[in-house]
């Protein structure tokens, strides 16, 4: 059994198949991370973080849902999905990788480095361990494939490369557009990708694996917009709907529909912050989206058929404090604004969107920006991804409206039946790309970065 250990030999330079790349897909609501070649990301962590009054930042699922006094819940993104706090974003992304995949860098100290001298007594070779320690950066041992939204430009892209090389010690790096990766996840290299996430909806035309920059469209009408519509519906309801998150409730008692809650509420010495409450409310809203909200299938606007829809059966929903009601036509209204700007519910703080921000208009603008002769091909390969594309009936509405808007060419719409594949499409695409043999020549190596600086990213990662 004393076979010489292959792994004491130096590992081939990033080409070795045994080194699986890390794939990092940051989004507004969650960061997805994992190893290339795997089916789903092993690590999905919230993009929000907790900020204590001491200035300390807390990352991860367990921290952000803990009702601590004086903890603010913050996001490193602007509300339209652009990173504004790079320092924190970097930490959150790093956390998504170290917490589940590679371990903290401290973890690697004093590791088992093998019985170099074969004496088998288990002594740790301290010198070797220390040498390792000096070199070790949290992600120093695997190339990193990172995604970015299609509309990200120059400086943002260069920043990603810089962070990977300087802070994480990545030996090689590649930056891919989310739209392209999502298309790959569906086995397509030519597609019109509609990605409906939390903060933004992005439409990306892709031909032969390349995103056509001029055709990329972006709009804030996405998951957060729907959540906001729900808040407004709740507030404007004749008897306002109480949006009370779980942490505020001590115990609830069943009550009849529409009757005020009879819950016992939790008492806090210092109640958690408003931002924490808002964040926890989002949990309830997501549940509401999953189990109650539905999209009117169109193709015409809901407004034209509202009388008809009123006869559809309602669906019940119970708030964490026990308050419950059956929601009828309201459950269709929250999504309608994605398609019909006039139908969006608005108030002083949330102005109505514009029609050109609605999904079908984004597609039209995107197609108008690309060559006429590829439009039919793109319409035959529409791909819908993103967490908010899971809203019931949404795809049917998109298809119906696209067919009505583009009567000539055949419109074909693909969306995975598998919820996981839909939610993590761009990560899965990255996983596929990162494990392709032919991809290895695409990496920007550390040496190249040192030679050419950050500008290399625009040349290599088109």
């Amino acid at each position, binding site marked *: 059994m004393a076979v010489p250990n292959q792994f004491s030999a130096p590992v081939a330079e990033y080409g070795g198949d045994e080194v699986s790349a890390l794939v990092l897909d940051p989004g507004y609501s969650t960061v997805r991370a994992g190893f290339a070649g795997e089916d789903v990301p092993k690590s999905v962590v919230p993009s929000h973080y907790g900020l204590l009054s001491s200035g300390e930042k807390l990352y991860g699922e367990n921290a952000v849902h803990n009702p601590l006094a004086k903890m603010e819940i913050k996001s490193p993104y602007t509300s339209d999905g652009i990173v504004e706090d790079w320092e924190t974003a970097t930490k959150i992304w790093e956390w998504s990788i170290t917490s589940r995949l590679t371990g903290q860098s401290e973890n690697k100290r004093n590791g088992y480095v093998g019985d170099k001298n074969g004496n088998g007594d288990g002594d740790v070779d301290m010198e070797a361990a220390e040498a390792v320690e000096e070199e070790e950066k949290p992600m120093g041992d695997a190339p990193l494939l990172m995604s970015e939204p299609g509309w990200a430009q120059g400086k943002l892209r260069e920043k990603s490369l810089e962070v990977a090389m300087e802070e994480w010690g990545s030996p090689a790096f590649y930056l891919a557009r989310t739209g392209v990766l999502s298309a790959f996840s569906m*086995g397509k290299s030519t597609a019109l990708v509609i990605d409906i996430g939390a903060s933004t909806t992005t439409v990306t035309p892709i031909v032969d694996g390349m995103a056509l920059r001029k055709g990329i469209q972006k709009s804030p009408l996405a998951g957060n917009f729907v959540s906001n519509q729900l808040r407004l519906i709740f507030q404007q309801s004749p008897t306002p709907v109480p949006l009370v998150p779980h942490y505020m409730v001590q115990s609830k008692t069943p009550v009849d529909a529409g009757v005020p809650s009879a819950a016992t509420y939790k008492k806090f010495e210092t109640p958690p912050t408003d931002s924490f409450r808002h964040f926890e409310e989002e949990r309830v809203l997501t549940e509401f989206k999953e189990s109650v909200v539905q999209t009117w299938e169109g193709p015409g606007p809901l407004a034209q058929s509202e009388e008809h829809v009123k006869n559809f059966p309602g669906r019940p929903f119970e708030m964490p404090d026990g308050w419950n009601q059956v929601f009828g036509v309201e459950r269709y209204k929250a999504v309608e604004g994605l398609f019909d700007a006039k139908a969006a519910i608005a108030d002083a703080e949330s102005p109505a969107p514009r029609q050109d921000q609605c999904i079908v208009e984004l597609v039209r603008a995107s197609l108008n920006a690309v060559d006429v002769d590829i439009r039919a091909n793109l319409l035959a390969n529409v791909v819908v991804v993103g967490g908010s594309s899971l809203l019931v009936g949404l795809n049917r509405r998109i298809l119906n409206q696209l067919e009505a808007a583009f009567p000539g060419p055949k419109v074909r719409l693909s969306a995975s039946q598998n*919820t996981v594949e839909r939610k993590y499409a761009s990560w899965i695409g990255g996983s*596929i790309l990162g494990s392709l043999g032919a991809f290895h020549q695409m990496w920007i190596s550390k040496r190249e970065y040192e030679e050419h600086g950050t500008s290399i990213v625009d040349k290599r990662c088109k």
Partner: protein
Amino acid sequence: MAPFKDEQIMIIAPGSQTTLAQLGLPESFTPARFRMRSRMFPASKEGEWEPYKVRRKDKQPGEYDTTSGNELEDDIAYEEDPVSEEGAVWPMAEGRITNWPCFFALLTHIYNALNPTFHTPILLVAQPCWTARDHERLTEFFFEKFKMPAFALIDSATATCYAYGVPTATVVDVGLGKADITAVLDFIVHDHGRIIALPKCGGEAMTQRLLELLNAKKFTREMCEQLKKSSICEILPPGVPLPGTAGAESEEVTNPAAAASTGASASGPGHRIAGGAMGDVPLGPGPGTEVGDGKLDEDNEGVLDVASIVTSGNMAEILAKKEREKAEKAASRKKGADAAAAQAKQIKLPNSRKEKATFMYEDHALLDTLKGMNLSDEKMAEAQATLDEGAGKKADAPAESTVEPTSAIEPTTATAFPVAAKTGPIRREIEVGTERFQAASGGILEKIADGIHRTISAVENVNRRSELWESLIILGNGSKTRGFKEALMATIQTKYVISPSSATMFTSELPSNLSTPAGTGANTPQPQLGPHGVGGPGTGTGVNPLLLAATTAQNPHLQPQPPQSNGMSTPGGPPSLHQPPNMHSSHGQTPTTVRMVKVPEYFPEWKEAGYDEAAFLGAQTAAKVLFIVDQGVSKGFMTRSDYNDEGPRGISDYSM
């Protein structure tokens, strides 16, 4: 490679506090034969580790050694102390490996102690928080160090499902410093939303809470720890009043035992009646009975710190006092018939309705102090016998352990390492009030319940969530505290269970197309190619599908089966009486019911010991399938040659 045999298989399940291990699979699976505290002691040579504390034993000039000839030898002697944990290094914290050299030393020690054959494959039960790189590192260590022919990793949550024979469950593992909550679907761990190491949600949090409450009464951490493990510590479901408070029935307030042991008489009501209900019978002397001795009772309100009295030179005094007490007790025992009668009524009250109760505290600190004093063996034995209040109350321990399989001392440790244990524990009797019902009052139940809600809500496939709510497995030694599981279920019940809506109860038949809002975008064309159409390497998400098929096919009891439940599905709340099964089937929200998975019954020894370490049982099942039944056909383990070909990173293809 020659086929593996049952007796060759080694299983190791490391935990922050206790590591379980076993060599060989018995015909009927048993709880781990080998239990090792997960700690090592730094040896005098840097970088080396010892499994026991090694104590320097100096000989005092005036003291003779009973065995002659010793005087000629070196003045310094060393002895191994199997009980003491002074200076120990614990290489895992909240499941994470924090000190690798120490952890490797621990594994090596276990491996050597089990003394396997060369043809021994190893199955390692992985903690949820171990990262992919940790798995690789361990794989490398095992192959390089032990040169064994085959190695496999099983996630502790997956292993738990194997133990219970259910493919789908929500596994809530309450450990020492943390809780892990995992949704397992068809034997596959759902990574997204998995709650890993939820801080301050383990047994230690409850000990600390007791300490907070009892600090004023001079309880130490160790006392609180033992109190928590005793049967008088109990967690009451939310809404149940503490005895003696306004909500409780008034007759309990006049508690005869409470009166008896609050200092009225120095002798207290004698001895425990053997076989008394759960060993709850209050015994004196408790705190507050230490009256009448000027120097020793500075703290009438609290527990006596005997150890510090001993060190401060009052040893003789306390020994004399104890002698006196014991004599008095013996006397009162003879004429104690009336006291016993007073107790008879008391015995019938369940623990949860008694304001006060006592437990036996094993004072290790005192023992350590005595040992540190370099007493002669004879004096040592004498001091011990005098200080021990537990002698002659043997009925105590067994009575407790049948109710709750908890014991302060891990019994099998001693059997695994037969080290001459010449010094037994010193037991003292301590009384506690209603603080003993408040171990979980720090919010641990709410935190875990919320974690379960988050874990299940993160399962993308909405349709499978109710199945997960109806298949809860609560285990781990942290959940052993009496009443914990019931109280947790009741917390979930009062906070998360959705009642049928009064508005739909009578118009329940919603169109069926609305009943599954899974958001799968019905009617959309299928993609031309799946995720692997572009050359994705079909690595599993943790489980090799072939392996899954093999393991389930070989084990009829692992075949998917409808979730079973036991009697305590909805404690504290109405059982499904109010919920006719089909009434709100279209309700998209979950849970509408919560249930615990019925405990497996195939293995009598496990049934007896309890299933808090069920992951080990699952590991036995898995090991049997992987190494014996399947013999590697489904690539269920990594062989040495696989390792040489693929390196440590290959392990992700072989773990489950």
